[in-house]
C-alpha cells in the first residue's frame, strides 16, 4: 500500500476485476491467483483461453505458469532486479511511452539512471532468468496496448516489499499501461477486507480514508467529530508493538479477529511478547492460539451474524448481511461499542448503518456511499458525493497525487539467505482450500486437506533420502516443526514451500524476523531453513 501510495497517491488496485477480459496481456508477478483468489483465477484462465497473452513471474511453477507464454522462474527476492532489467531493455530499444512519461509522470531521470545499470546480462545473473526471455517479455509487455499487471504477497512479503511495489508501478508508468481499461497495477488483496481495514484507518499513521494523523487540520476534524482530544503522533505497527511488549513498554492489548501466534512471522517472539503483557483482551470466534494468552476473551460473531460492509480488492464496497443471530449475543461492532460506552465515550448506534454513516461523513472517498446505494451492487471508492457513480478505474487522465512519481530503486537481496547450516530457502503462502483462521474448523475441508505438506523438489528429496510418505523436521534460526511432504518439481531445487494454515506444522515458527522497514510487513517469502528426515 505504501508503495503505490507513494508513486500514484493511492494504494489500491487501479482497475476492476471485470477488466481482466479486456486485457490483451496479463503479467502476473508473485501471485498464485488460481489458489489464493480462485474466482479471479477462473477469469484469468478464461482470458487465457480466449487468447490473452500470459506472463508469469514466480519461483514456483504455478497452475498459470503451466499455461503461460513466458514463465520467469526468478530466484526468490530478485523482483527489483528483474523489473529494472525489463525497463532497461524497454529504454534501450525505445519502447517506452514517451508521451505518457512526459505528460503524466515526474522524476524519470532518476529511474533512467538507475535501470541503466541493470543490463540484461547482469539481471540474468541475479535472477536466473535467461537474457532472451527478459528481452522477449520486455518487448511483449511494452508493445501490447492493453497490458495489465497483477501482483500479491509474492511482491510485498519481502524486506524489499514496498520497493518491489514501486518497481511494478515504474514499469507500468514507463509503458503507459495505466488509467485505461485492461491495464493497471493491481494488487489482489488476500483477505476479504484488507482493503476495508486499511480504508477504515486500522493503521498507525492514518485515520479513515488515509487521512494523516500528523496533520493538525485532520486531527482537529476528528477531535470535533468525536468530542475527545487525539494524538498527532504516529502509533506502533504490529512488530513494533510486540517489540515494545518485550521491553515492558506496552502493557495492554486488545486483539480483535487476528491470530498473530499462527499468522505473524517468528512465532516465538510473538508468544513471548504476549506473555509480557499485563492485560490482554482477545475478541475472537474460537479459542485460538492467541486467545489462549488472553485475560479476557470476548466471543466474536461470524460474518453471517452481523450487518456491515466489506470492501473487496477492487475497492468495491459491498454489503454483509446478518442471516442469523450472533451465537454469543453481540455482533463484533456492538461489542467494541459496548467497551467504548463503558469507558465513557458515547457509542449509541442503533444499527451498523449508523456506524457506516458516521464514518462516511468523515471519509471523503466514502462520502457518497450509503447502505441504500449498495443494496444490490457495491460501489467503487472514491465516491465523494451521493450522486457520484463510483470509480472503477483509478488515475484516468491524472494520478491521485497529480504526477506519477518514478523512483530509482536498487536491488535489495532478501534479509536471510541460505548458508551451510540452513541450506534451503523457505517460502510460504496460501492453498486454495484454506483460509487464515476459520477453515481449520470446517469438518469438510479438514477431511480432505487436514495437514501440511511441505513441497520439496525431487532432486533435494533424493539427496535427503525422502520418499512420498516421509516426514521431516524443518528448522530455522527461530524455531522448528515437523511436517509431511509432497515431492514436486513445482518448486526448484533448494527451495521448500509451505502454507501457513496448519497449527500442527506452523510455518511461522520458522519465518524470518526481518521486516520491510517501510510497511513493517514480514519477509514471509524468504528465510533460510534446514530439512532433516525423521526416522519412520
Amino acid at each position, binding site marked *: 500500500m505504501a508503495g503505490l501510495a507513494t508513486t500514484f497517491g493511492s494504494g489500491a488496485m487501479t482497475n476492476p476485476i*471485470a477488466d481482466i477480459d479486456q486485457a490483451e496481456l496479463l503479467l502476473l508477478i508473485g501471485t498464485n491467483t488460481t489458489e489464493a483468489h480462485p*474466482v479471479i483465477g477462473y477469469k484469468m484462465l478464461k482470458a487465457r*483461453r480466449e487468447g490473452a497473452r500470459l506472463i508469469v513471474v514466480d519461483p514456483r511453477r504455478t497452475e498459470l505458469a503451466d499455461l503461460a507464454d513466458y514463465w520467469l522462474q526468478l530466484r526468490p527476492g530478485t523482483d527489483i532486479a528483474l523489473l529494472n532489467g525489463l525497463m532497461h531493455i524497454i529504454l534501450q530499444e525505445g519502447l517506452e511511452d514517451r508521451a505518457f512519461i512526459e505528460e503524466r509522470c515526474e522524476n524519470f531521470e532518476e529511474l533512467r539512471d538507475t535501470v541503466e545499470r541493470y543490463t540484461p546480462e547482469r539481471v540474468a545473473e541475479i535472477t536466473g532468468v535467461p537474457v532472451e526471455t527478459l528481452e522477449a517479455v520486455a518487448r511483449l509487455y511494452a508493445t501490447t496496448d492493453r497490458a495489465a499487471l497483477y501482483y500479491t504477497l509474492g511482491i*510485498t512479503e519481502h524486506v524489499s516489499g514496498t520497493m518491489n511495489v514501486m518497481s511494478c508501478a515504474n514499469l507500468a508508468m514507463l509503458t503507459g499501461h495505466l488509467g485505461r481499461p485492461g491495464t493497471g497495477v493491481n494488487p489482489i488483496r488476500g*483477505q*476479504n*477486507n*484488507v*482493503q*476495508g*481495514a*486499511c*480504508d477504515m*484507518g*486500522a493503521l498507525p499513521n492514518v*485515520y*479513515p480514508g488515509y487521512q494523516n494523523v500528523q496533520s493538525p487540520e485532520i486531527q482537529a476534524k476528528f477531535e470535533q467529530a*468525536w468530542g475527545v482530544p487525539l*494524538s498527532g503522533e504516529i*502509533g506502533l505497527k*504490529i512488530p513494533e*508493538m510486540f517489540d515494545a*511488549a518485550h521491553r515492558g*513498554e506496552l502493557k495492554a*492489548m*486488545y486483539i480483535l*479477529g487476528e491470530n498473530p501466534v499462527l499468522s505473524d512471522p517468528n512465532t516465538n517472539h510473538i508468544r513471548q511478547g504476549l506473555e509480557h503483557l499485563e*492485560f490482554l483482551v482477545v475478541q475472537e*470466534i*474460537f479459542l485460538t492460539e492467541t486467545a489462549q494468552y*488472553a485475560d479476557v476473551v470476548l466471543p*466474536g460473531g461470524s*460474518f*453471517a451474524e452481523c450487518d*456491515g460492509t*466489506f470492501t*473487496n480488492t*477492487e475497492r*468495491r464496497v459491498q454489503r454483509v*448481511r446478518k*442471516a442469523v443471530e450472533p451465537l*454469543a449475543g453481540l455482533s*463484533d*461492532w456492538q461489542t467494541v461499542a459496548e*467497551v*467504548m460506552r463503558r469507558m465513557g*465515550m458515547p457509542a449509541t448506534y442503533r444499527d*451498523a448503518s449508523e456506524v*457506516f454513516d458516521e464514518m462516511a461523513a468523515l471519509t471523503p472517498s466514502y462520502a457518497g456511499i450509503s447502505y441504500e446505494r449498495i443494496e444490490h451492487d457495491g460501489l467503487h471508492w472514491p465516491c465523494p458525493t451521493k450522486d457520484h457513480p463510483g470509480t472503477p478505474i483509478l488515475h484516468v487522465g491524472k494520478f491521485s497525487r497529480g504526477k506519477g512519481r518514478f523512483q530509482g530503486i536498487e536491488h535489495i537481496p532478501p534479509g536471510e539467505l541460505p548458508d551451510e547450516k540452513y541450506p534451503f530457502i523457505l517460502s510460504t503462502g496460501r492453498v*486454495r*482450500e484454506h*483460509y487464515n483462521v*476459520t*477453515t481449520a*474448523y470446517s*469438518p*469438510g*475441508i479438514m*477431511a480432505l486437506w487436514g495437514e501440511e505438506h511441505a513441497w520439496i523438489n525431487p532432486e533435494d528429496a533424493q539427496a535427503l533420502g525422502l520418499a512420498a510418505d516421509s516426514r521431516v523436521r524443518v528448522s530455522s534460526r527461530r524455531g522448528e516443526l515437523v511436517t509431511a511432504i509432497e515431492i514436486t518439481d513445482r518448486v526448484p531445487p533448494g527451495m521448500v514451500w509451505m502454507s501457513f494454515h496448519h497449527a500442527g506444522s506452523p510455518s511461522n515458527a520458522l519465518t524470518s524476523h526481518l521486516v520491510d522497514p517501510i510497511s513493517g*510487513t514480514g519477509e514471509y517469502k524468504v528465510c533460510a531453513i534446514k530439512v532433516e528426515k525423521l526416522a519412520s
Partner: protein
Amino acid sequence: MDLIPVTIDGQRIEVPEGTSVLEAAELIGIDVPRLCHDPVLGAVGTCRLCVVEIDGMRNLRSSCTTKVTPEMMVRTKSPRVVESRRTVLELLLSDHPADCLTCEKMGNCKLAEYAYDYGVRKGLSFAGEEHRYELDDTNPFIVRDPNKCILCGKCVRACQEITGKNVLGFAFRGFDTKAAPWGDTSYVESDCIFCGNCVAVCPTGALTEKGMQGQGRAWEMEKVRTTCSFCGVGCTVDLNVKDGKVVGVTSTDGTVNDQAMCVKGRFGWDYINSERRLTKPLIKREGRFEEASWDEALDLVASRLTDLRDRYGPKAFGALSSARTTNETNYLMQKFARGVMGTNSIDHCART
C-alpha cells in the same frame, strides 16, 4: 448497433443483432422452458425443450441457439411446439427415478417443474430400460446421482467455461452416455477442486450439496444475500437459512462473480456452526478460563484498560483490528484506540 424487428407470439419487438430468440422472448416476458441453457454458459441447444416454431423454417428450432433475423415470426406455444416438448419430457422421465418425495432437489427441480407445467407423468409411454448407477458420495461436499442426470451438459460446461478445469466430460456413448470426471472416476479421485459450480447449474437432483441433505426443502429456505468472507475477491453469495441456522451457501447473481464460487465459499463456511465456537465471554482466573456474563467481562475490560491507561499513559496500549471483520467494526476499533485509549497504535496484519 442495428436493431432487428421480430414478432413473438404476436408481440412485436426490436432487439440488437445477435440476440437469440430465447433472449428476445424473455425481453417481452415470455418464459421459454429450458433445461440446458444458462446465461452464464455457452448455448448448445441439446435439451430440445426450448424449441419454437418459426415461419419459413421446416423444423422446430431451439430458441437458445437461433439468432433473430429481420421480420422473424416466432410462436413459442403452438400445438406443434407443445407436443414436441411433451415428448422430450416423456423421454427424459422414462429413465429418471420417480423418487421425488425424498429427492433433495424437490421444490427446485426444473425437470419436475416442466413435467408439471406440461402434464407429463412417468410411464405414460416409452417404458424401457433404466439405469442403475451407483451414487458418488465419497467426498465431503457433493452428492452425485447419475441416475438423475438428464445429460444437459451444464455441469460439463460449468467445469470448462467457468472454472476452466475440464474435469467433467461425457463418458461412453448412446444410452450409456454419462456426465462424469475423466475416466468415469469419482469426484474425489479426479482433479476436481470442489468449487461446486457444477452443482449450482444442475437442473435436477443429479448434483446436490452434501451438507444440505435433509436440512430443509427449497421453499423453506430464507436466502440472505451477502458477501463471501474467504478472500479479497468479494463474491456475492446467498446464505440459506432455516430455523435461525445457516444450512448452506448457494450461488446468486453477483456483479463480481456472476454465480461462480470456490470450495471455501460454497463448502468451507460450516465453521460458523462449529461446536468449538465461543458462546460466552471467558475470564482467566489463576491461569484457567471461566465463563462469565457479558456485563462482568465488559466491565472488567473497561476497568482494567482505564486503570492501565491512567497508570502508564496511552503509549502502553496497542490494538489489533482485522482484515476479516467488517468496515464498521474496523472503524470502531480505530475510534476506540484513538478516541478512548488516546493512541494511534492500531494496526492489522495486512498492512502491505
